[in-house]
């Protein structure tokens, strides 16, 4: 009896081990199946086809007078630099998606506006076509104009970025990236129309080339449009703009090696007729010391067709009757701005910027500043102080 038990023991242990092994195998294959099911479910899950991203800026600015430069005044203002953007990307198929971006700005009482809304398809040859509401890609920072976190400054240089009165259009664009060993050349063509206030911009057609070589980026853009200002809203309708041809030419350069940042753009915008032709440009230098980046910007703009001004009819006569007025004081303009700022990285997705901008060099013009044109402010220089927190999430 004892012997039998003793003999059976190894068998039991052995078979027990085999059973445990089988159970383990079963358990493993069961788990593997579950993983497969979970992975399959994950691919079918609608949430896997949707991406949400956002950006947020909250800032305060104040000017030393009421020239109204960049939306500032001599009182502190929280609304001017504060905005929130939400973007949803919805994949319809592997190469087809819809993107919608809503931006709500403090200066518009946070009523959300659609800035991007497009259907995008990438063909097998990697040509991408987008149709819908798109950003007008005139400037280096146009595509992420309001994503403060992705920009070095508290605000883009106003002399350059503030002149074209519309930032998006409805139409189509197409782009392709030529990939070379050490560089990428992006080519983008765009076509569409835009309506902003009482002005219509038809037959917008343009192209840009962006060449990225390591830390260098070079950019060229050319675009045309026909500008029409609606007769009912504009007292100066009679001559100023009826499908007047407008050209935009821009060149940009940037260098960023992680420490040193150099950005510069020059633009030339022309419109047939009395509306001003403007040349503008800026140069920004910054240097990152770890989390801190001091920067400086010089920007300038000047109208180029001051001798082409004509009289416009304005309601300045007795009881608001229209009288001819020389338009030089409205459309002649020049100014220079000097900014010193500091960007500090609080987190990897949150930065704060302090900026002081001094503006002068108006000469005998009103600097295209509405408050100076209307006479509500008469100073020959202005200084704006800003603090803005920028985040992406």
């Amino acid at each position, binding site marked *: 009896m004892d012997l039998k038990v003793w003999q059976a023991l190894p068998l039991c242990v052995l078979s027990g081990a085999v059973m445990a092994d089988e159970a383990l195998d079963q358990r493993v294959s069961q788990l593997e199946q579950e993983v497969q099911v979970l992975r399959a479910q994950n691919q079918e899950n609608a949430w896997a086809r949707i*991406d949400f*991203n956002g*950006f947020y800026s909250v800032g305060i600015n104040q000017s030393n007078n009421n020239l109204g430069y960049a939306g500032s005044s001599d009182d502190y203002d929280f609304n001017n630099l504060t905005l929130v*953007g939400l*973007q949803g*990307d919805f994949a319809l198929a592997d190469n087809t*998606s819809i*993107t919608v*971006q809503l931006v709500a700005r403090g200066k518009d009482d946070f009523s959300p506006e659609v800035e*991007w809304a*497009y259907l*995008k398809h990438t063909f097998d040859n*990697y040509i991408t076509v*987008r149709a819908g509401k798109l*950003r007008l890609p005139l400037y280096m920072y146009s*595509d*992420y104009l309001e*994503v403060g*976190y*992705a920009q070095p400054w508290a605000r883009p240089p106003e002399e350059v970025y503030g002149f074209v009165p519309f930032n998006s259009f409805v139409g189509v664009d197409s782009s392709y*990236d030529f*990939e070379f*060993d*050490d560089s*990428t050349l992006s080519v983008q063509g765009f076509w569409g129309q835009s309506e902003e206030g009482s002005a219509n911009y038809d037959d917008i057609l343009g192209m840009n080339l962006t060449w990225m070589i390591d830390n260098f980026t070079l950019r060229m853009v050319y675009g045309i449009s026909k500008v029409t200002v609606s007769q009912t809203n504009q007292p100066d309708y009679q001559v100023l703009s009826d499908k007047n041809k407008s050209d935009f030419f821009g060149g940009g350069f940037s260098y960023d090696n*992680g420490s040193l940042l150099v950005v510069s753009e020059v633009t030339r915008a022309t419109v047939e007729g009395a509306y001003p032709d403007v040349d503008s440009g800026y140069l920004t230098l910054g240097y990152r010391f770890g*989390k801190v980046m001091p920067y400086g910007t010089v920007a300038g703009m000047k109208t180029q067709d001051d001798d082409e001004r004509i009289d416009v009819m304005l309601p300045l006569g007795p009881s608001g009757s229209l009288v001819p007025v020389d338009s030089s004081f409205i459309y002649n303009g020049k100014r220079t701005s000097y900014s010193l700022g500091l960007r500090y*990285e609080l987190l*990897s*997705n949150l*930065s704060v910027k302090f900026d002081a901008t001094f503006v002068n060099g108006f000469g005998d013009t009103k600097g295209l500043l509405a408050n100076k044109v209307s006479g509500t402010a008469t100073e020959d220089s202005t200084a704006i102080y800003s603090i803005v927190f920028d985040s*992406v999430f």
Partner: protein
Amino acid sequence: MKNLLLALSLSVFSLSSLAAPVVIANPAGPDALSKTEVKKLFLGKLKKLPNGATPVVIEYNKGDILRISFHELATDKNEGQLQAYWSKLIFTGKAKPPKTVASPSVAVFEVANNANAIAYVDDADVTDAVKVVFKP
């Protein structure tokens, strides 16, 4: 004292091991990648692997120490620059950032199970299920 020595040698070991990230691929994937290809892959610019397949890039979560040391070597971008870089691409709809995983073992698992997946791990975490295609 012994404990101190142990801790010291461990920390030296972990420091040296952190400085040695390697890029891994599936055994069925590419045999080798160039520095340029690796840089373009992890910046979302490489559309095709050398074998013609569409790459599936696997990244680590923001702030991961391995991620920081890898990008210092491979793309020359720190965490803030990466964030700004991807913000530009996300908010222009040009590209989506890579899928992120929480740990090297998950990265190895993903690469082992997807012929087109590319990830990077500490060379100590490389297993037989994957192959090393680039050492920065």
